[in-house]
């Protein structure tokens, strides 16, 4: 992890760079949506709206459409990939995926979502990245660049 000053924006905000392993290649950037709760696909998200629907989930009712979704990993039904696959076909998929725990659900889900995806980062992304931060994912090179949101 390294911290550099971003000189292009004023006031300068620090950038944090994390390194990890490519799961699905490609580059994307967007606003981070971070959760400490694992996510269910089937029965956990609405694939037409791109929202989390699980009762007792901290993101319940919140949409991940066009967000960089930062989460611990997948749980629940084997319909995980099919439901994230449908979010892509319905135009409500996340722009990129950053997660900690590798499972077949999340691996296949990331593959069929066609969104750049990274895991095994050198710092815990759930700690470093906060909802609202701007995150650039360069999955081909295993690089995640985080620009912290303006402090209010």
């Amino acid at each position: 992890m390294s911290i550099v000053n971003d000189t292009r924006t004023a006031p300068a905000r620090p950038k944090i760079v994390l390194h990890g392993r490519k799961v699905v290649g490609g580059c994307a950037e967007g606003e981070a949506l971070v959760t400490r709760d694992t996510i269910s696909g089937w029965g956990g998200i609405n694939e037409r709206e791109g929202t989390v629907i699980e009762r007792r989930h901290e993101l319940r009712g919140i949409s991940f459409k066009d967000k960089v979704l930062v989460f611990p990993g997948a749980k629940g039904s084997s319909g995980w990939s099919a439901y994230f696959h449908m979010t892509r076909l319905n135009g409500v998929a996340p722009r990129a995926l950053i997660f900690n725990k590798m499972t077949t659900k999340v691996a296949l889900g990331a593959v069929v979502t066609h969104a750049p995806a990274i895991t095994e980062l050198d710092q815990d992304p759930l700690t470093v990245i906060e909802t609202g931060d701007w995150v650039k994912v360069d999955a081909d090179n295993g690089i995640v660049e985080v620009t912290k949101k303006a402090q209010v």
Partner: protein
Amino acid sequence: MKLTDSEQAMLDGRAGPAKQKAMDLLMRYGDALGAERLVETNNVAGAFNASTPSVRALVAKGYDAVYSELNLDSAEVVPIPKMAVNTCQLITGIDNEKWRIQGIPEELADQQKKAEGYFGARGINMFATCTPYQVGNVPVKGEHCAWMESSAVVYCNSVLGARTNTEGKESTGAAALTGRIPYWGYHITENRRGTHRVEVDVAVDDIMDWGLLGYWLGEIVQEDIPVLTGKVAQPSLIKLKHFGAAAASSGGVEMYHIPGVTAETNSIEEAFGGRKCEATLRFGAAERKLAYDTLNCATDRSVDFVMLGCPHNAIEQVWLVASLLDGRKISPNTQLWVHTPRALREVAERNGYVKMITDAGGVVMSDTCPAISRHAPKGTRVIATDSAKQAHYLPAILGLPVWFGSVKDCVEAAVTGRWNGGLQ
């Protein structure tokens, strides 16, 4: 990933475009996992049926297009040949006979039947159940499988000692055409050993208790591998079916060990196989009550829909429901759906169990469940079920509150229209 010559030939397209697309997906999937190779499988349980409204546009392009996109992640439409290995269809969204009662439009029911014609002609067995192991697909210890359905996966790994990861719609679609799946996770012996010790301090015997234990445990261990000891009475297929389904809903449990009961272990030491025990957990009266209270999110005691049979009921469970209802009538304000695999419904029909349940005012369904179909009887406000899995998912899927309890409590709710269940 390192491929064999025949795998490379498929990837190069020498076995036709469908197998080429299938190998391409398996390569992307294997790389994502960090797998080094594929393993051969001759037992695939997947989800092929296309009967939901959201796939209408694809269905209009034909079933080759449906399989290409949804089962192979290929936007390019390729002609789909016969399956290369033994393949079955898991649960579907529509009961082929009772679809009107479900509230399914005729157009979708027809769509499912047409899809089954297409898939059947390619050798996909229409078991149409979440429990293939109840209707003849019982893999042997050590057999490499490619199964979907979290409740079936955990049963396959733990109780039977066969080997599968929780596969998805696309990976099973590719496995069925190639007879290959990434050699990763639960296909590898070292990854099958225990991670957590669970001391069961309160007697766990009936179906409800096994559901509560599984629901509590899954939330804590997530996708780790618990080893159960203590007051677990000799379980049956039905109890372990409910236990695994619950643990795979609140968490992602794909394997557990009960020394002397499950396939791969006779002792606690063997269950851990030298792997470090990360934590010892205790399941006592407080944990049992916590799981019960968490599952029961309803407050209104007027129950208008009772759902039994998730995972799909064994024939003994259908008999139990029939016996509890014998000579009684369910409340005019309440509907009762009992779900069992189509093959077992045939037996239940022959035995007269279906008539006993129907005479009482209930419906015996197959092929589907309310969570998968997203359909409950029209106007349903409050649900009761004996399934921790269904109690977990229905509030999210249908937006309705659920009571969870024993089969007996649920049948009483159907008869009286009131929830009077509780922890004994």
